[in-house]
């Protein structure tokens, strides 16, 4: 087997950050696994993404031309299979994303390859490739091997690996693939924007975020008031948005917003599910308040306190009153 194949990801003309991170992961094991590192990018005009993908360590960029700019699982799968037949890579990296979930495992079935999902560590062990993933709500880590598999497909966790810093010197090639047998059983209709509700989590620099710990919809206004009083934008975790207690635009996390510009994050009653962490674990200063001393959020927070969120809210109100906010 030779080399690593990466599948780049983009939506509506924007390349996802995950693509660069996948390259970083590949480059990290390139030496031990052996090159070349090839990046496959698909679409109507895939050449548009070449510059962004030409990072240090990338050997080839394959352009897979197809007649739709939108994600189609069958097309992706077929193109990757074509690239795999040609390049015979030992490792195929796909992002563990909404799109990746649509075809990664299917690819493993088509190839008869090894497979692991939501991987955050890639090494070489005594049996060959070894991937590390988490289990039971991020409580434990699991190392898996793929004995007897010439090729392994991994879906890689986002916001984990770092893209290579410098630019690369990749050769650009066209991928020849026959898509004629694809029957078009899957047809893109349209996109629906997430409603904004006047809140921009992505731009906010100070966020107060509420989770299941606030217990009831009736308590939301109280925390909204608190956020306003201390000058923070109100955010929330997924269960709050799912239940309709706050508009989706307030949701921080994988299927919500990444708090990209946030400097200070106050998490109240949020346990710290992986998807939520995705949206905020990068933040410089995180303060977590929860009643559960074992909540995973404390693993990424800077400061924490184990206490009742209502008591905390009361105390914070009083403290900020005292300062005369």
């Amino acid at each position: 087997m030779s080399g690593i194949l990466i599948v780049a990801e983009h939506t509506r003309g924007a390349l996802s950050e995950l693509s660069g991170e996948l390259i970083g992961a590949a480059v990290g094991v390139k030496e031990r696994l052996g090159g070349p590192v090839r990046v496959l990018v698909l679409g109507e005009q895939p050449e548009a993404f070449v510059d962004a993908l030409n990072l240090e360590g990338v050997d080839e960029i394959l352009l897979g031309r197809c007649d739709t700019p939108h994600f189609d699982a069958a097309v992706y799968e077929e193109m990757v299979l074509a690239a795999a037949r040609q390049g015979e890579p030992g490792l195929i990296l796909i992002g563990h994303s909404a799109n990746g979930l649509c075809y990664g495992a299917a690819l493993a079935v088509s190839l008869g390859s090894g497979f692991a999902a939501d991987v955050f560590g890639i090494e070489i062990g005594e049996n060959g490739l070894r991937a590390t993933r988490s289990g039971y709500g991020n409580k434990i880590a699991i190392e898996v091997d793929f004995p007897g598999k010439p090729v392994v497909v991994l879906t890689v966790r986002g916001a984990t690996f770092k893209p290579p810093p410098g630019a690369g010197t990749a050769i650009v090639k066209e991928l020849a693939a026959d898509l004629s047998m694809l029957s078009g059983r899957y047809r893109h209709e349209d996109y629906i924007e997430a409603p904004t509700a006047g809140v921009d989590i992505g731009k906010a620099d100070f966020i107060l975020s509420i989770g299941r710990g606030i217990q009831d919809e009736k308590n939301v206004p109280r925390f909204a008031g608190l956020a306003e009083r201390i000058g923070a934008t109100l955010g929330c975790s997924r269960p709050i948005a799912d239940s309709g207690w706050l508009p989706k635009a307030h949701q921080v996390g994988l299927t919500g917003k990444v708090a990209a510009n946030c400097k200070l994050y106050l998490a109240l009653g949020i346990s710290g599910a992986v998807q939520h962490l995705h949206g905020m674990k990068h933040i410089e200063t995180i303060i977590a308040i929860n009643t559960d001393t074992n909540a995973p959020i404390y693993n990424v927070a800077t400061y924490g306190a184990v206490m009742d969120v209502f008591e905390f809210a009361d105390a914070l109100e009083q403290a900020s009153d005292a300062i005369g906010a």
Partner: protein
Amino acid sequence: METRELFWGLTSFGTTVFYLIGFSAIGAFFWGLARSVAKYRRGRASPVGLDWRAGTRRMLADLLTHRTLRRRDPFAGAAHAAIFFGFALLFIGTSIITLEYDILNPLFGVTFWKGQFFLLFSLVLDIAGLAVLIGVVAMMVRRGAFRLPKLDYRRAYAGEGELRDAARRWRVEDWIFLTALLLIILTGFVQEGLRHALERPSWGAWEPVGASIGALFDGLQLDAEDVSILRAVNWWLHGLGALAFIVALPWYKAKHMVAAMGSLMARDPLALRRLPKADPGAEAVGIGNVAQFSWKDMLGFDACTKCGRCHDACPARAAGYPLSPRDLILDLRLHNDAEQGRGTGSKRLLGDVIDPETLWSCRTCGACLEICPVGIEHPVKIVQMRRKLIENDQLDPLLRTMLNTIGTSGNSFGEAARKRANWTRELEFKIKDVRQEAADVLWFVGDQASFDPRNQEVSRTVARLLKAGGVDYGLLYEGERTAGNDVRRIGEEGLFESLVEHNLGQMKAARPFRRIVTTDPHSLNTLHNEYPDFGEIAPVSHYTELLVDLLERGTLKVTRPLGLRVTYHDPCHLGRLNKRYDAPRRVLELIGCTLIEMPRNRDNSFCCGAGGGRIWIPDRPGTLKPSQLRVQEAAGLGGIDVFVTSCPKDLTMFEDARKTAGFEKDFIVEDIADLVAKAIELDAIDLRDLPSLTERITLAVAERVAAVVADRIDAVLAGRGVTAVAGLTLPPPPVPVAEGLPTASVEAIPAVGWGIVPVKPADLPAYDVPPRNGIRILVPVKQIGKLSDEFVFTDDQRSIPGEYFEYLLNEWDDTALEQALRMVEAIGGGEVVVVTVGPPAAEETLRRALAKGAQRGVRVWDDDLADADPVAVARMLAGVAAQERPDLIITGAQSGDQANGATGTALARLLDLPHAALVVDTDWNGTDSMLVTRELEGGLRHRVRIDTPALVTMQTGANVPRYATMRMVKLAKEKPIVELAAGIPECAFRAASTHRMFVPPATRAQMMEGSPAEIAASVIKIIREKMGAKA
């Protein structure tokens, strides 16, 4: 001979007419009664057996002593007694007259209504009439001038400023009743007075009232003829008025006179303490239609006199909740009067007549039931209606979650069952495990006392007290589950029954014990009153009773009488419901406390608000917690040191209320056990389990010997130039290999020839797939494991033993199942088949899915599949799908334990189906293609159309999965589950194999300590540092 003439001045024609009217009136009266009885008969049989003899005796005692009316309203009690006894005497008097006049005299020529008897008779009746008059006038004044809140029919909690129409009619009815009585009495006295004025009997003084009125008429100086006319007219007025009263009686407020007697006779002495079991034969669960009430319930509706005592007593109403027991009963009465027990009308009982919010507001504290003078059992009806709401899945989502939690982990805190006895770890001794060792007493701890931190402290204190008192007691440890008192009162009867079965089973399998003690009144109530309905159980006492015994015998010695001024809150389930008031008071006395009773104490104790499941349901805005009203009451006493509780929920509620209501400086809240501990200086008592004296001596000697020998050996070896034997120290433990370091180079990777080998579906044994009848949707589900906080790995480090997990249905698959059920319901036909790859224990999850509405289940397994990866699992599912050939496969996007998000997609490829992942909405009419909406990062949604048959994986939040009651789970046992053995060769396939599991090194936040105020101050400081002076 003194007597008087009846039917004075009436011709025989007039008398005949009167008799005719009289008989007609009585006939009409009975007809009116019969109509009501017919209405009751349309109701169901009473679920509780009735002891008529005891009931009748009790009812007569109630009436003769008027005890139910005198309580807490002496004015009304006295006035009513005057009316009642006066009326009763007048009735008896009329009957005596009838006896002689219509029966004994004409038939046998016997007369006795004369002479001394007559005189006494007349005096008594005059006084009786006067009593009625005074009573009625008193009641009129009370109703008109006292402005009692309980007589106000406006529903403050519904924001009513004015009386609604029905309530206006009630008010009119109230006044008509009183006025009618007044007029009858007045016309009666006028008649008497006129008689006295005309006849001036010599014995007139024996009818003092009559004589006085006669004198009045004399004073008017009317001539005899006018008086005669007046007398005749008034006679008819009085006679017809009385008869009209009788005719009308069954039709309005007056009917309480009959209905109340029936209601009091039929009263269940164990009402609410012991709720009726669900009828196993009945189709319907609970009460969802007025015809499902029992005749006793319907009689109760009619017995209500709108006295308002229940309205006054209800803690929910006082705290602003939309529940007034009085209004509930009256609304049910109005509805039943319209339906006449039939329940065929268009108004729905639950929704149109009674708002579910009203039913959920109840605390099942029993205050209404307890004070009702006519024996109406309000909470029992509420619970039965709640059973229906649960069945219909009309419950607060948090309550739904709570019931699921209790179903899975056996406690309301969502903690792993194995942590139930963790509170005992801090004790300096080990408590017996009754499952292994016999004991005198089983201590049934309960959820709140096992898991709530503040109550855990009290549990430890009680454990120490019992140990110091030499009580031989033990626990069931993890075998105990919540006793289920509140689960039953929420209305989840099926779950309650399974809890009873479990707890009784644990007690039966344990070593012998003589009796049960508990610190939890809710557990006490159900163990003592309800569990015997299901099996034998030992007698149950409250820990305060045990403490009294220990203190009185001197086993626990009070060395430091406390000298505190305390007030004591009677817990609803201990006091009012189970009548146990004295033990805690005796304890307080024995430890030297002065008890100042709150105005509402003992049977009138004011509920803390946690009962009836309310501790699990969030509070509405604009309401208080009843506990806040209660601490205000305590603070009003002035100069109280301690507010004493003897129930874990009370402790939690009142500590909270004390803070939120701002009474921190006024008093502290403590459990009675803490006070006893202080009084006997428990801290100074050594409770450790010390080894016996001989053991201790032997150990001391052995240590000395070993020390001497070691010195000798050292000396000998030194003489031989050998250093001390290093083998006495253990080798250092192996250093765990840091993750991420490569242990082999590229060359060591075994070379495998590159090739593509597409995976195929597993070949499973064929089974009988029923013929298709509409759409078939296959829903693969997974039973996931929730890992407890404390766990260990197996020796090979490749898995974790099953005992550290709690198993439940995967949330994503639950959403998928709900989506499938809704699709089939919308399309109007078809079946949902659930399939799982799991061990026999996973059948429970299939049953739950079947309980929610799936028609069939399939389970595939072989022990070799225990560590199967998503692709290996998908192969098995594909093997089933190949036989089922469904129109659609819907599964969860990922599992809650491994979160691969891969099984569904792999399955789609194995079957070559079009597929979409992370779907939040579907639109399919059962034909060739469906529109699905996928959720992408950032909340962006992507809609695609896929041809069917297809596979979709569902994201949570797409719908709210329905709740399956335990009853539905039991019924689901009838639905078929096929078990397929996967077969060894097929099981071998893996796309990945586990090398090892480990706990990743975790960074940890810097934890802030201190009071809330201190922590808040630190946070403000951080905010100002990072964000500038914004906060």
